[in-house]
């Protein structure tokens, strides 16, 4: 892999940019690997990367039915934060957020991490109490957040209407080092680094079955033939239930559609991320100037990557009251992703009933922010059989009643 640098740009500028090589290779699959990861989204690629980087395991294939990053990783609104309520969540999301701080340098790929600051508006008295509790919890967890008053909100977000009749802004939970990153670049950066370590990223190859012998996984059936695996990691988000079914176990996961939309590009008007959980809407401005807007999920199972129109309407109706200046913006694009929701709204990073088969799923509406931390934990779990970061996220927590309840702390999709 040729490193990207200012010298590389200068060198290529002198030779008409003829020397740039492909960012990752597209090899033919081998007959078997030490580790096979199903799903080349951010979580699958990050798992492969940390298997190589932290544990020296590089005989790895990442198998993807479509194109890498084409699932939720390439469809999300890129919010990064770690102001969660429960200790296990704070630990893994803060690990991820802190890895994002240096990810561009680590991967030698600009993921455009922008810790521009993130506000979660409190628009009801319940939310005020809830966020004050979160600030206290975060203080104990070593996650830097603070409670800010409406005047400070207005200072940070001049375009906001803080005294709307229906949704007054009563304050906000503020994480100064929260922000956004470029979603595609996160997938591409990890893919390039994996490829450089000699790993195989095999696109347009769907896993259609899981083979096992004596209770242990032996490999996967794919549309390009059987591929043997000593260890298997299932990291397929919305299709987790389907692949788990192939491996012979059930999951406490349901797939629903989550949508987002962007406006036409406008001049810079908001340099922070604002989430308004009561009204199920959030907004940030991309580097191109588009307002990036997201809302809530649909309430029914859906695999079509197409959501219900009224959710967009509800989101925009509420956001327009909080940000009156967006009322005449034209919306450019709208899309949906299939997110994997668990009962307690926390992810699963776990061993499974099938030996040497591991699963990482249930990130639902909020897993982009977690990609580096999740990959770190999943790699450790797969390499060593246990990981402190993943310990509380096991499948058995549902049977044992040890939920990591984030449905109150994070009432909205993000």
């Amino acid at each position, binding site marked *: 892999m040729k490193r990207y640098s200012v010298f590389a740009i200068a060198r290529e500028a002198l030779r008409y940019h003829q020397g740039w090589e492909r960012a990752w290779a597209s090899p033919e699959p081998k007959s078997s690997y030490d580790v096979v990861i199903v799903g080349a989204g951010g979580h699958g690629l990050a798992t492969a990367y940390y298997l190589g980087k932290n544990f020296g395991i590089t005989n790895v294939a990442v198998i993807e039915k479509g194109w890498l990053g084409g699932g939720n990783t390439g469809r999300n609104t890129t919010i990064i934060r770690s102001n969660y309520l429960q200790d296990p969540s704070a630990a893994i999301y803060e690990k991820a957020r802190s890895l994002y701080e240096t990810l561009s340098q680590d991967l030698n790929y600009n993921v455009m991490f922008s810790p521009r600051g993130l506000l979660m508006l409190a628009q009801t008295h319940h939310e005020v109490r809830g966020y004050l509790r979160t600030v206290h919890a975060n203080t104990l967890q070593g996650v830097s957040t603070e409670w800010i008053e409406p005047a400070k909100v207005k200072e940070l977000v001049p375009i906001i209407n803080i005294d709307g009749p229906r949704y007054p802004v009563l304050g906000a939970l503020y994480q100064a080092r929260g922000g956004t990153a470029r979603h595609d670049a996160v997938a591409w950066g990890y893919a390039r680094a994996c490829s450089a370590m000699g790993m195989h990223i095999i696109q347009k190859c769907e896993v259609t079955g899981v083979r096992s012998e004596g209770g242990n996984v032996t490999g996967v059936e794919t549309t390009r033939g059987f591929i043997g695996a000593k260890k298997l990691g299932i990291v397929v988000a919305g299709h987790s239930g389907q692949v788990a079914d192939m491996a012979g176990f059930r999951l*406490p996961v349901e797939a629903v559609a989550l949508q987002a939309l962007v406006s036409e590009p406008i001049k810079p008007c908001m340099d922070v991320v604002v989430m308004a959980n009561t009204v199920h809407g959030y907004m940030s401005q991309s580097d191109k100037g588009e307002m990036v807007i997201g809302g809530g999920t649909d309430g029914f199972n859906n695999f*079509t990557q197409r959501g219900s129109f009224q959710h967009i309407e509800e989101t925009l109706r509420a956001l327009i009251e909080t940000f009156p200046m967006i009322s005449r913006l034209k919306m450019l694009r709208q899309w949906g992703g299939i997110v994997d929701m668990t009962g307690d709204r926390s992810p699963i990073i776990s061993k499974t009933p099938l030996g040497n088969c591991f699963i990482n799923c249930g990130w639902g509406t909020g897993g982009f922010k977690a990609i580096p931390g999740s990959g770190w934990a999943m790699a450790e779990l797969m390499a060593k059989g246990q990981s402190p970061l993943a310990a509380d996220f096991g499948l058995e927590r549902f049977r044992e009643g040890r939920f990591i309840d984030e449905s109150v702390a994070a009432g909205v999709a993000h």
Partner: protein
Amino acid sequence: MLTLTCPYCGVKAEETELAPGGEAHLKRFGPGATDEDFEGYLFARKNPKGVHFERWRHAYGCGKWFLAARDTATLEVFGTYPAQSTEPPADLIAKIKAKRPGWEGYK
């Protein structure tokens, strides 16, 4: 937009009039059940990519719960039936089988 016909009042209701209520025909397990059964009842869901049986409520209509058969991969609705049914009616199953020959059937 999703439209379902309420089997009670006969209204062809569109999505905003309805509240989704999750998987239908769950068998309830309570005190005395094994941990597996209780966990399965509370958390494990079929979540199929294809034919699915669900609970819905005609929230902004007659207010009653009913059941529906729907394809989660195409959003096609096969039919609705009363909430008192312990399993999908035979004519509905036959209708789905005719439309989805590869479907493994209700289990």
